[in-house]
């Protein structure tokens, strides 16, 4: 049970004067029981990776397989389905009411009106929006954080087997980010989840696996713990080293014998304290 990309390459405007290679020979397997964090700088091909994985773009080279079957088109209605939450998904809200907008996806894949309405209400509850209070409101009257959560509900309502999220916390305040993190945490119980971001700290502690994309190439695929032992990889990928990790790197530079690096703030504090004790 996996969504697999095998030697996938993608070039925008192939054959034109503006041809731009976004992905180059990417091999990636996403299982139903894991949360994969995809990190990369702007323009590294993260969003393209998600579009190809959701069957919205056909790779110019290589193959995408859903549970062993080659993907030939959008996977919104496949079994299991692949749901994709785009960056700033609130920009796709259009219906007269929140409930109608969230029910748009289920109706498109053939659910009855009752089923679509139920799925919409369940999805709204899952994202922390009260369907009774918000269901009949216009999606254009919502705040930025509410609109983001409603847009995510629009994808969750389709009960995806794999949930792909493109920069889900971009532009949100602290409470909005926490709400999105809770939604992602709940979603991983039911689906394979892929989160794409250039802000590592947000999901590093909850990811089962981390993938690094650098200029369209997959340059790292392993555990978050393995990645943080090599902070230079962040820099090489054009990313900011997470603050908690940067502190430990600096501690080593000034002579403290930090045993190992950790991205967990509490564990990092303990490691630093131990290093200080040893040095005294």
């Amino acid at each position: 049970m996996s969504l697999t990309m095998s030697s996938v390459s993608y070039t925008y405007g192939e054959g034109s004067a503006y041809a731009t290679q976004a992905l180059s020979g990417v091999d990636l397997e996403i299982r139903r029981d894991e949360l994969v964090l995809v990190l990369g700088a702007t323009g590294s091909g993260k969003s393209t990776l998600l579009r190809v994985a959701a069957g919205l773009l056909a790779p110019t080279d290589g193959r995408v397989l859903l549970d062993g079957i080659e993907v030939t088109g959008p996977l919104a209605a496949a079994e299991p389905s692949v749901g994709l939450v785009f960056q700033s998904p609130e920009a796709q809200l259009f219906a007269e009411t929140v409930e109608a907008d969230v029910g748009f996806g289920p109706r498109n894949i053939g659910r009855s009106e009752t089923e679509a309405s139920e799925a919409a209400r369940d999805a709204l509850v899952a994202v922390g929006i009260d369907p009774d209070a918000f269901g009949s409101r216009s999606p254009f009257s919502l705040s930025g954080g509410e609109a983001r959560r409603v847009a995510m509900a629009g994808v969750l309502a389709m009960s995806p087997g794999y949930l792909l999220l493109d920069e889900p916390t971009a532009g949100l305040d602290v409470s909005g980010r926490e709400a999105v993190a809770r939604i992602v945490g709940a979603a991983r119980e039911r689906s394979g989840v892929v989160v794409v971001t250039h802000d590592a700290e947000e999901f590093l502690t909850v990811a089962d696996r981390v993938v690094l994309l650098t200029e369209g190439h997959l340059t790292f695929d392993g555990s978050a713990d393995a990645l943080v032992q090599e902070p230079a990889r962040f820099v090489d990928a054009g990313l900011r080293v997470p603050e908690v990790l940067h502190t430990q790197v600096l501690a080593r530079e000034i002579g403290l014998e930090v045993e190992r690096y950790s991205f967990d703030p509490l564990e990092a504090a303990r490691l630093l304290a131990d290093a200080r004790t040893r040095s005294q």
Partner: protein
Amino acid sequence: MRPPVPFGQYVPGDSPVHRVEPRAKMGLVAAYVIMLFTVGDFIGLIAAGLLAITAVAISSVPSRLVLRGVRAVSVILAFTLLAHGLRWNPATVSLVRLGPLALDPEGLLTGIFFAVRIVLLVVGTSLLTLTTSPVRLADGIERLMSPLEVLRFPAGEVAMMLTVALRFIPTTAEEAEKIVVAQVARGARFDVGGPTRRARAYVPVLVPLFVSLFRRADELATAMEARCYRGGEGRTRLRESHLTLSDWVVMISGAVLMVGIGVSL
């Protein structure tokens, strides 16, 4: 990541065609259009075609980008051919006959003549936008319109509107594409059903697109006002564009040649 280049979008370059001043290019295009509509036979069209091919070759713009514009009018070309070529129950000899419907050789030849004229029109005019940046094009239009300012015509404002509109064509296309893909990811289908159903399928695209465009227009207007934009009056230009002697020579000799071909062939 960049989407595919829309038809007619500027291709940066430093060819002799790129370097010609936009007003001179617009004058040449006007003369070219006059030529196309005055030539009366295929010899004239061949001469116009040779001129267009030469200009494309000098411009170094990939020919497939030029021909992309022709693809965009393929329906009009097909309609032109059929409208001239098909006859209902003709008495004359036909190439192909399907019941009372027949393909008339003389009509087909007339259709080909008009279709070639459309192709050459598209090639010539798209070469103008392919080799002139939107800003220089708008600047050229503003200068051409500037004599009308004595009649209180807002040439500067019209040119600014044109610049902004041209600037936002690729952005709008990109935004529309993003929304289409986002709705497809929610199971929307745009390729099923009859015309009414297909038209209705675009509601989930058009509503957010217009909301986004109005929001963007509002933000742009505020941002322009914040940077002291008060209309065209008193504004100076970053780059002053002047018609040089070589621009005049190219424009006048080219225009005389083309109008001459148009009148004589």
